[in-house]
């Protein structure tokens, strides 16, 4: 797994190419990402970078976390702490206290974006699974957005596991893979990504290179 950069989803707009072709893009703004701790094979059993991102008021974090930040010698108090599994060689390139920014990514590169999808609440089968709606006429009575049959009768005498049913939709972790970086604005810390990414505007997403998850 590669290094994950925590960003804020600003929203969607479009960019035009020289030929006048319009590209729909999502704009992501990188948070302040600082390496808080390096985990190594010897001490932790695996190699990883622990990265703090965003900021929050000093008094709202626990003393334990505060101590963790002080030990790393970080000014300010990052809001979130995330961990990225990296190879030993990659980990060696980074120091505790080092900042990460959008220069991790290049134009044309393929990336994965991890976010929390928009919550739809308790949704029925039509919205959640794309079930067809029953006939609205020809004598239909009080049966408008119902799903159809959910199984046979006496045999098997139960509903098969994994049957598409109503339930909570959205507000879950979603990874969109192989999105293309159209433009990198290092000055303002912006990533322009072709297409949509999970979650609502101003939501937090994590970005990593698609290459990094490919099996060798």
């Amino acid at each position, binding site marked *: 797994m590669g290094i994950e950069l925590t960003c804020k989803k*600003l929203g969607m*707009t479009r960019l035009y190419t020289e030929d*006048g072709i*319009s590209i729909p893009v999502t704009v992501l*703004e990188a948070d302040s990402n600082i390496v808080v701790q390096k985990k190594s094979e010897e001490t932790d059993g695996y190699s990883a970078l622990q990265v703090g991102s965003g900021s929050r008021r000093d008094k709202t974090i626990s003393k334990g976390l505060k101590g963790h930040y002080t030990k790393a010698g970080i000014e300010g108090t990052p809001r979130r702490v995330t961990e990225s599994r990296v190879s030993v060689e990659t980990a060696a390139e980074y120091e505790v206290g080092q900042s990460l920014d959008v220069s991790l990514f290049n134009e044309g590169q393929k990336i994965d974006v991890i976010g929390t999808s928009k919550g739809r609440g308790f949704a029925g089968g039509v919205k959640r699974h794309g079930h067809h709606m029953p006939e609205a006429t020809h004598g239909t009575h009080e049966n408008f957005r119902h799903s159809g049959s959910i199984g046979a009768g006496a045999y098997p005498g139960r509903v098969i596991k994994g049957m598409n049913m109503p339930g909570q939709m959205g507000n879950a972790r979603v990874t969109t893979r192989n999105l293309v970086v159209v433009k990198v604005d290092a000055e303002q*810390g*912006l990533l322009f990504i072709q297409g949509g990414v999970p979650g609502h505007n101003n939501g937090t997403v994590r970005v990593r290179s698609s290459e990094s998850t490919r099996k060798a």
Partner: protein
Amino acid sequence: MTSLQSIERAAMRRDLPPFRTGDTVKVSVRIKEGNKQRTQAFQGVVIKRHRGGQSATFTVRKISNGVGVERVFPVESPNIEQVEIISRGFVRQSRLYYLRDLSGKKARLHSKVRDLSTLVSDEETERRSEADKD
């Protein structure tokens, strides 16, 4: 803190004059045929300005060979080389859909602005104020 609006605004082009609905404009469109490029003009009345920022478009209506033709142009597209205001029409609506039902003399707009020299792009305004200083 950067907002999407400020990003869009910074990328906006400044070489187009402030045309509005009701204006008769001449739009120069870049057209690519194979590997040749040429510019085509489309002249008509702006009946609609749609959305803003990078997604902004405008619709131009003209009568071509007795048939009404409407074309939608993306404002920010580099294929729109130039927009020239031919005349400024006086209108009270922002969307002139009623023109579709009118034809001939009824479909004309009258103008209250004769002097179009002040209707220039932001770029041109700056250039003129620079020239005034000298």
